């Protein structure tokens, strides 16, 4: 969980270098859908797909200019993975992802709606080092766009509903060593609810 440790360190560093009054922290829970991880043909076409993934997103940001903020966001998901061939599914275990994003956020033109756009790294953490993951899970560049709706909950607190779109690519060392070329574009759509607190 090196990525988690780095995230924690950066978040602490960020929090201690700015005035406590400026920091905004957020936490959201939700679910993420992903497109097909990879396709193959041995005899018949095979596709590998992750199921709907429970998702935890944490964010920390500081002001940058009058309307905008800069910060870090981390997103964790866990899902089952299956291979499908001729309509028959094979369980390939579970797959966790840990994502760290450098994010910019600001208001959208509609009241109470905000955007967050971020780029960063996504680490795939398979439950077992077998099959396509027998040489480990990859780390890939990812881009995310999130639209948020925020409403006051308590003084200093807001609740938030968010829709996220993420794009990354997927391949593994094992697939590359077997002669798979390029990488598979992965589209991820998430829906989350949570809270935001200004300090």
């Amino acid at each position, binding site marked *: 969980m090196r990525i988690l440790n780095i995230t924690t360190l950066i978040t602490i560093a960020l929090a201690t270098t700015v005035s406590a009054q400026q920091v905004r922290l957020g936490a959201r829970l939700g679910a993420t859908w992903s497109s097909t991880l*990879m*396709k*193959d*043909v*041995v*005899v*018949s076409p*095979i596709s*590998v797909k992750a199921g709907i993934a429970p998702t935890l997103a944490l964010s920390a940001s500081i002001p940058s200019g009058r309307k905008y903020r800069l910060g870090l966001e981390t997103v964790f998901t866990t899902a089952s993975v299956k*291979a499908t*061939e001729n309509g028959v599914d*094979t*369980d*390939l*275990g579970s797959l966790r992802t840990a994502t760290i994003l450098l994010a910019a956020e600001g208001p959208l033109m509609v009241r109470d709606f905000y955007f967050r*756009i971020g*780029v960063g790294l996504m680490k795939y953490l398979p439950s077992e080092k*077998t*099959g*396509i993951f*027998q040489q480990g899970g990859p780390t890939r*560049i990812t*881009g995310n766009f999130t639209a948020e709706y925020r409403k006051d909950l308590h003084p200093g607190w807001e609740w938030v509903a968010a829709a996220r779109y993420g*794009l*990354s*690519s*997927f*391949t593994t060392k*094992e*697939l590359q060593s*077997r*002669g*798979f*070329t*390029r*990488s*598979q*574009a*992965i589209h991820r759509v998430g829906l989350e609810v949570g809270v935001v607190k200004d300090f």
Partner: protein
Amino acid sequence: MKPTMRLSLWIAATLLAGCTDIGTPTRPIPYESRLFIPFDNQGQPAVDSLRFHWPRTAIPVRYWVEDSVGAPALVRNAIATWKTAFLYNEWDATVVSDSNSADVIVRVENIPPKPSPSTIRLASLRPECEGATDVDTVATRQEFLVPVRVFLNPKFQSDSLGLCLRITATHEVGHTMGLLQHSGDVNDIMFTDPQAIRLSDRDIATVEALYHREADMHPVRP
């Protein structure tokens, strides 16, 4: 160029690079893995070809291994080696302690005579050790009798006996998975007189293809 513009261009380039499908590889042509039986149910000359692989319901395949000359470790190593051939968990195996529940029984002994006329013996020969796998399709041709019997026989003590047993164990486990022929290429672990110390691309392609085709035989226990 403004930083925001630079960031936008970088994001656009990332998105564009991500809009691809993975390219599937061209795999080597598999070697023959079907069992050929040169007579029909009445014993008359007629060639029948039969494909076998363990069904998903039988996985993990259970191996009982006689605890002699380090055979359990050799079989575990063979299982781990063959497992790397698969990308989609098509096959798995485990070493069990109860021979009654085993799908494959591995003995360390001089290779005995064939137990019945319907048994087909797949033998591997190396100077220091030999191996054999007995396959019985029973009478119906759709049935694959379990437990499958495997024999490992260390013929004489030498520096290379360990390597010989390791290669032979991997070769025989290959037969028990359904590779019911020998390859004609010395680089394949399934070559009659196995020399290769690891799976070749053809070994991998053959066992992959086997587990993605319909089997003609299913395992039965008498």
